[in-house]
């Protein structure tokens, strides 16, 4: 049966994550001089930490495969929700300068609202109108943050 050695899938994945980061940081740190314990170079402490993390990662990974480990499967992933939320943030960053705050916020609110199961166009549009007005009042006029408000073409 597939995965029968790995009793605790969750812990196994966590251990692998630790190991991956440890290898990445250790290999990158090889480019920096380590120096000696008395005169440490920039590479000394990162290597030390990476080794500690690798040991922890090994213990966690191997612990997930022992015969006494709890049986735990990975939880179901909601890639759609994650994609709507992350995507809306990326779009906000990309559109803030070309479209200005009003346009970027509109896209952010509409796209992120799609992540909800209870999405309705009218609800999201109304929410966008209220939130954009609130942000303009608080951040632009109230706190005076330096934000491009309107599309750059209009300026």
């Amino acid at each position, binding site marked *: 049966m597939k995965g029968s050695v790995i009793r605790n899938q969750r812990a196994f994945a966590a251990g692998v994550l630790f190991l991956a980061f440890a290898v990445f940081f250790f290999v990158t740190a090889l480019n*920096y001089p380590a120096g000696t314990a008395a005169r440490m170079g920039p590479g*000394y402490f990162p290597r030390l930490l990476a080794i500690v993390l690798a040991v*922890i990662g090994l213990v966690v990974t191997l612990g997930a495969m022992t015969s006494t480990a709890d049986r735990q499967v990975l939880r179901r992933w909601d890639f759609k929700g994650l994609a709507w939320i992350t995507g809306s943030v990326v779009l906000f960053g990309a559109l803030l300068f070309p479209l200005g705050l009003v346009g970027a916020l509109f896209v952010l609110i509409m796209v992120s609202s799609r992540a909800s199961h209870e999405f309705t166009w009218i609800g999201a549009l109304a929410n966008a109108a209220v939130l954009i007005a609130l942000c303009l009042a608080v951040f632009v006029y109230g706190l005076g943050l330096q934000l491009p408000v309107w599309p750059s073409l209009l300026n």
Partner: protein
Amino acid sequence: MDLFHNLAIGFATAAQPANLLYAFFGCLLGTLIGVLPGLGPLATIAMLLPITYALPPDAALIMLAGIYYGAQYGGSTTAIVVNLPGESSSVVTTIDGYQMAKQGRAGVALATAAIGSFFAGCVATLALAALAGPLTATALLFGPKEFFALMILGLILASVLSSGPFIEGIGMVVLGMLLSLVGTDLNSGSQRFAFGVPQLFDGLDFVPLAMGIFGFAEIVRNLEQDDKLSLVTQKITNLFPTRDDFRRMVPAMLRGTALGTLLGVLPGGGAVLSSFASYTLEKKLSRHPEQFGKGAIEGVAGPESANNAGAQTSFIPLLTLGVPSNVVMALMVGAMNIHNIHPGPEVMTKNPTLFWGLIASMWVGNLMLLILNLPLVGLWVKLLTIPYRYLFPAIMVFCSIGVYSINSGTFEVYEAAIFCVFGYVLIKLQLPAAPLLLGLVLGPAIEENFRRAMVLSRGDATVLLTSPLSASLLAAAAIAILLIMLPTIRARREQALQE
């Protein structure tokens, strides 16, 4: 008396109209986010950090502190009226608080929570003021190796007290420390893990990281589970506890306050741990343990006092030793750094008005919260009728603008998006994010003190174990690790952290 003299300086600072206004604003905001489930003080403080840049440092810290302890008040309202923890520290309040509400005693439960919180807040403020002097004096004796040992102890305790397997908590601490190495090495001036990206030369900013993990990824998690709110619809009348209620709640309040004050000081402690511990204690001591879970007033009075006391005393290690004991305190380090204040023993001597002003503002803030919460409780309950589908885009908006305004650049926005994905991976793997953030904040100081200690000892690592102070701190850390390995203690800890 020095203490009174210092408190007088503090109250003079806290009573300045501008500071009163920011304290009020912080308490109001804290109550608001405390009431709303799914939005915690962590994301809120992270959101507001960049905006505090424009404020004077004392006003900024007074406001941010108000958000943290204000959230403890607000959280109880949701717990009692809706049976949902508005804040993770009011999880236990849902047990008996909601039962009281179902019996038509919502008003009494709310008043108990508010009175308990206020009393605990006053005591914790005094404890903070009294302990600050001696602890700061101790910290001034510390050299690099002692600071190194102290921070290791703090991080280990924080992982011991976080949920999930201990070794995974430690792994997250080390990963956080590795992430903190990104940027310029202060000793040699060379770039580490920056890969030629100029925005990374100053290091990974922890605001986008905190926002991605605790703001955005948390929203994805919340959207996966659709909870239906079950509001207690009856009108909230009769706020006043009866004489019998008072007789039962006062001892619980006293015990909760004492417990919270103690546990708040502990690294990894703070509001959440205090409230759980207090509930367990009250249930053990009660002559009517069978009433717990059925509306026992002690089950509200104890934990609600404890969480507020713990929230406030968790400032002690930060302000005196420079070691943040939980993630909210780690964000306070960031807030102080923005204003070029380095948390630690020097805060008290270099910025006495800020130090004592912050402490005094906590007492003032508690008074404001009492007024904000009791008469206005109906208003807060109304807030709960806002559906989450309107609420979370608002969180998205405030977080995004907050992240952008750190440097007025979009790089941080993308950084937050990346950490949103990373945070979601952590949620799915059930890895605790709090130790990661603590490691990230303490990492540079740990490396610095470690390197200095090694220079002083000419590379002899045994010096950490031969100096009595650092040896005893490291021994305490080792004992904590050994204890957690013992099967009976491990079982009890898991029980306490789950409940």
